[in-house]
């Protein structure tokens, strides 16, 4: 993790989660990936977006977990859901059926055209590191209205070309969605612990649009595996509010407590 200077008492991870949470508007239906996306989505629900609809691929529709799930299918998700459907129904009716506004994903690798790799590092037939695989991501990325991505910034994660396109961003040349019918907008923002990036409307190459407080452009470049572009008018990401930090910390405390017992 790079050094980040901050005016207030919060971590870079908290900055990332709060920024990711703010991206979710109230009333959005969000297909939530486990881990960082789930943390951000629930923070949104507990702060500015009480009516955000959270959907997990385990079949839990409109769930309101008190504590963060460790897995995509924790009992907490079912117990607090409006209803729970089968996994085929989830992927067919709710995701493919076009009911999802935002797919919220994490990833192991991401490249300049926002393609995601969660399959493996190295060559497919002789992998250096075997990763878990695609899971829901390939179709979340194409069937959701748009996609938010959140992950920690590092040269290992932000690579010029992913080793394998598990999940389409904009393809190897940025043109992978052109002319494809019945497909969502794809990634519209990437939120890290350093900055916020968006794809260039023309070339689809990721552009840093906002630096988190205290973060420099050099730090972002240092943590990125290609020559990253910056927007002409680079914003400063708004800091977390006291309330956001309070709610996030309480959520993580409740979660730690709940999981410690098991």
């Amino acid at each position, binding site marked *: 993790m790079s050094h980040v200077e901050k005016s207030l008492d919060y971590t870079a991870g908290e900055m990332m989660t709060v920024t990711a949470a703010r991206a979710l508007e109230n009333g959005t239906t969000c297909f939530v990936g*486990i881990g960082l996306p789930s943390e951000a989505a629930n923070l949104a629900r507990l702060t500015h977006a009480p009516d955000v609809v959270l959907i997990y691929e385990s079949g839990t529709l409109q769930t309101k977990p008190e504590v963060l799930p460790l897995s995509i299918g924790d009992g907490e998700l079912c117990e607090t859901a409006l209803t729970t459907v089968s*996994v*085929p129904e989830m992927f067919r009716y709710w995701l493919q059926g076009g009911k999802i506004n935002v797919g919220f994903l994490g990833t192991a690798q991401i490249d300049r055209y926002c393609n995601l790799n969660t399959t493996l590092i190295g060559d497919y037939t002789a992998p250096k590191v075997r990763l*878990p695989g*695609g899971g829901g991501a*390939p*179709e979340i990325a194409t069937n959701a209205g748009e996609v938010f991505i959140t992950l920690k910034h590092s040269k290992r994660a932000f690579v010029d070309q992913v080793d394998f396109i598990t999940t389409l961003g904009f393809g190897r040349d940025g043109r992978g969605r052109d002319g494809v019918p019945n497909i969502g907008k794809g990634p519209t923002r990437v939120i890290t612990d350093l900055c916020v990036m968006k794809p260039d409307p023309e070339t689809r190459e990721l552009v840093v649009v906002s630096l988190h407080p205290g973060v420099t452009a050099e730090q972002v470049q240092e943590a990125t595996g290609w020559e990253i572009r910056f927007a002409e008018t680079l914003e400063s990401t708004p800091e977390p509010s006291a309330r956001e930090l309070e709610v996030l910390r309480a959520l993580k405390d409740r979660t730690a407590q709940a999981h410690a017992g098991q």
Partner: protein
Amino acid sequence: MAEILSLHDAVARYVEDGATVAMEGFTHLIPFAAGHEVIRQGKRDLTLIRMTPDLVYDQLIGAGCARKVIFSWGGNPGVGSLHRLRDAVEKGWPHKVEILEHSHAAMACAFEAGAAGLPLAVLRGYVGSELPNVNDQIRFIECPFTGERLAAVPSVRPDVSIVHAQKADRAGNVLVEGIVGVQKEAILAATHSIVTVEEVVDDLDTHPNACVIPGWAIDAIAVAEQGSLPSYAHGYYPRNNRFYKEWDAIARDRDAFTQWIEENVMNAGETA
């Protein structure tokens, strides 16, 4: 018509070496007890199908039961990798394991199509993904009405499916409740099926549209109390998240793994 058997007898009768086996459970109701029985009986050359191979498939793979794994997400949920799966794929220990990987959407549709008696599933999927480059079972068809290019995958039709459920009645009708995953589809798609349950009751005591699988669509019911631990059974016991985290260290090391299997599976009875 479902026969109520011991877990030993159910596995001995229906799981043959070389069979294609789906042990399903989407985080919830994972059939650990049945998986351990498969390990104890030393089954070999299995093709293991599952959307989310987790610890029980890691254990089966490390114990040498698997020849091939068909899956869409192979990790320890919320923790990290499946080290036995990785060791088999990356280093060939205890022997080389072939993998065939899909996305969740495709596998969910493939289970659905298997249950629906179809040879293929059609979906809006795999657009721009490189998975079709490494899985020749992913093809594309053209819609005869719109001309749209759609993905197609073969349906899943296992020789035997094994799932865990909350309860069965004495006629072998089974109630699955909570996160139901693709369990019903796995049972209906398979040639044979085994359902382990927490208990056998007189009356399922349920509601008009519950997920109930009739006994005549199942081959064997076996009682396995706490049969999905360290996974969980909605209404019975919670997930043992701590074990999921502990597994990471056990599975990283071949010796630690071997010892764990020896102590907790091979030398344990059917209750393990």
